């Protein structure tokens, strides 16, 4: 089947560009706020999961690598990864780490802590990243937030790539915190979909 290509089918390019820009100047990490706010705004204002379904650059990037470039083993995603416990547990963990990052930003802003010119991978490993900070007109907390936010984006991309290789191209989507959050918002807005009585295998 040859589906007509749209401009948004090429959004996968945003992921390598974003990560590449952050390699040279960490302040570009602030652009990631778009990927944070846009899905939430779309679902809050009634657009459902249009972001995941159509505009998610990371989803497209993983599809490209795992699907078209065949870098995925294409094995079933473990069932526990799709369980509500894991999905909401990962979302809460993600939130805790996000607020810890905000607190660090606050400490740097208040002068209680020096700017940490490193990227923290998997919330544990400090990776030197000082070349991406050039001492700007902005206050140190602006750069601290950028380092923290870039750490989150790089870590989540790496997790996405790992599960892409091990399982299906878009296995990340199963427990992506943004996807979980937007689906929760949509469920709050619309409720559960109507049950199809004639379909024994459908959702109950």
């Amino acid at each position: 089947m040859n589906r007509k290509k749209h401009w948004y089918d090429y959004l996968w390019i945003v992921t390598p560009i974003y990560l590449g820009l952050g390699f040279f100047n960490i302040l570009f990490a602030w652009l990631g706020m778009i990927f944070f706010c846009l899905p939430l705004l779309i679902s809050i204002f009634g657009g459902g999961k249009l972001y995941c379904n159509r505009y998610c650059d990371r989803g497209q990037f993983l599809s490209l690598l795992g699907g078209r470039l065949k870098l995925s083993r294409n094995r079933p995603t473990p069932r526990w990864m799709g369980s509500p416990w894991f999905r909401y547990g990962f979302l809460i963990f993600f939130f805790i780490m996000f607020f810890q990052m905000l607190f660090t930003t606050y400490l740097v802003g208040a002068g209680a802590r020096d700017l940490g010119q490193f990227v923290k991978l998997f919330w544990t490993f400090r990776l030197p990243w000082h070349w991406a900070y050039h001492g700007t007109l902005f206050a140190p907390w602006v750069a601290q937030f950028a380092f923290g936010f870039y750490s989150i984006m790089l870590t989540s991309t790496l997790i996405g790539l790992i599960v892409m290789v091990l399982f299906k191209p878009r296995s990340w989507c199963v427990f992506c915190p943004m996807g979980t959050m937007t689906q929760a918002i949509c469920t709050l807005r619309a409720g559960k979909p109507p049950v199809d009585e004639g379909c024994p295998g459908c959702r109950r």
Partner: protein
Amino acid sequence: MASKRYAAVGARCVACGCCVKVCPLSAIQVWRGVAAQVDRDRCVGCGKCQQECPAGVITLQEREAQV
């Protein structure tokens, strides 16, 4: 004539929309961002959505014999 099988979406659908993209007959849509829904009349049970689904919630069901 309808095919013998159709795709059914289980309760743990994450509404990612992967199935929508691969359906050759546009028989699937994401219902209000909550879950994917299959138009059983249109679905021919090709199984592409089942292969694509990262959450593994799509199964192929046998249609009951039409009288």
